[in-house]
């Protein structure tokens, strides 16, 4: 356990010293992860709501597919995005490989199914509750989806946090498409993997402690904002 407490002390020390390299890595981690979660929400919220609210042929298949895609292996997604963005791949001309943009794309692919699948669940239950009101109001499909998403917004915040958790913890995909390049695409998880491979286990653990602290801080901030928004709405 000596290693763990040493790591904890070192982690606190790195943060207190505001180590420039660490701050850069944390900043990129947050940028990549939050961007990917935002993009995944833009895709996943309407998609999940549509599957949850509408009756159409193949709906069960779509639900199964969304749920299954929640378990996409990051390494496989990383490979697919790599082959797509590679100079020899179909989107090679964009020159996105080994950039933060490529990492955002890969994490979006990973997170969007999580957001969509959980949104479907939330919206489907709400839709059942609201069915009569929707019928009496004569709302069109678009109005229905918007009303459902709006009324489920607090639950959907938790959905977004689930996606954030997945993106924060992920290393396989960003390692392949980002390349873990110093000062360009190095994020917390790839830095931890690198220090582990150098045999600097204590420093790797210290970075892990920092990463967990960041996840707690982001989640805490969102939950606090949500609580005050609820108070304002119903206070």
């Amino acid at each position, binding site marked *: 356990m000596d290693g763990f407490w040493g790591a904890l002390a070192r982690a606190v020390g790195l943060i207190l010293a505001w180590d420039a390299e660490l701050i850069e890595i944390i900043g990129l981690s947050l940028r990549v992860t939050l961007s990917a979660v*935002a993009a995944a929400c*833009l895709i996943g919220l309407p998609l999940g709501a549509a599957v949850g609210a509408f009756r159409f042929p193949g709906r069960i298949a779509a639900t199964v597919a969304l749920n299954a895609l929640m378990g996409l292996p990051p390494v496989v997604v990383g490979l697919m995005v790599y082959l797509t963005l590679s100079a*020899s791949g179909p989107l090679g001309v964009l020159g996105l490989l*080994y950039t933060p943009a490529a990492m955002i794309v890969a994490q979006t692919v990973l997170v969007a199914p999580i957001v969509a699948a959980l949104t479907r669940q939330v919206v489907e239950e709400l839709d059942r509750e609201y069915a009569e009101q929707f019928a009496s109001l004569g709302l069109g499909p678009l109005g229905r989806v918007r009303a459902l998403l709006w009324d489920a917004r607090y639950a959907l915040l938790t959905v977004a946090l689930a996606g954030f958790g997945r993106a924060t913890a992920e290393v396989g995909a960003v390692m392949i498409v980002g390349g873990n390049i110093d*000062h360009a695409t190095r994020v917390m998880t790839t830095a931890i993997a690198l220090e582990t491979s150098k*045999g600097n286990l204590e420093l790797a653990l210290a970075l892990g402690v920092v990463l967990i602290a960041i996840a707690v801080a982001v989640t805490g901030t969102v939950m606090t904002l949500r609580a005050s928004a609820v108070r304002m709405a119903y206070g």
Partner: protein
Amino acid sequence: MIRRGLIVLALLAALPAGAADRFIVLQSTTSTRNSGLFDLILPIFRARTGIEVRVVAVGTGQAIRNAARGDGDALLVHDREAERRFVAAGHGTARHDVMYNDFAIVGPRADPAGVAGMADAPAALARIARARAPFASRGDDSGTHKAELRLWRAGGIDPAAQSGRWYRETGSGMGATLNVGTGMGAYVLTDRASWIAFGNKRGHRILVEGDARLFNQYGIVAVSKRRHPRVKAKLAREFVDWMLSGEGQAAIAAHRIDGRQLFFPNARR
């Protein structure tokens, strides 16, 4: 509120990468990166030319395959045969010797196979095989893995038949394999630079070294623009020329850990 948050986040994503356009991607190996060599020499090169070198560090096999897809402007690896094939296939302009160091067999202090002090590496491996002592192999088609397989062949042993028993193929980089080796008390073939820079040695130490067959040559190649039009050929050329120049070679020789030199420049001008 949610929507406003989303817009802010979308704007975050649109921020520029914050780096100059004058950069190249160098496909290289974990041994050169983990040893800290690039941290020393790349800032010197950048100060001289303004060119940033972005290093992707993977095994030699993967580095060559990435470069063969055009995903790199230059290649710095250690498998002469594979580098020559890369150039012969038209992916690279030319291959140059740039530096060398050597491999060594590290193992637990207890040394169950009794190989400490041996100067004949294939014979040492044969002794490890006879003792069925655990051996951790890269198993990842890297330069070090290829060198290891050549040594087994020279010792007349086919370790693949023992895979999963005393012969453990990690399929990972040098550092990960060393972690496995020190963790399970296994012998490991490693390049000397990775070993010196490695932070989790536990009781392991170098047991076999000094065999001429443990020589480890690194080569550098600029990726061909004719074959891969998106390659930044001019910047890559500048980097290769600098690495082979007096200044680049001196920078390589200056890299030391605890007073020990890790790479020995040997470019032929």
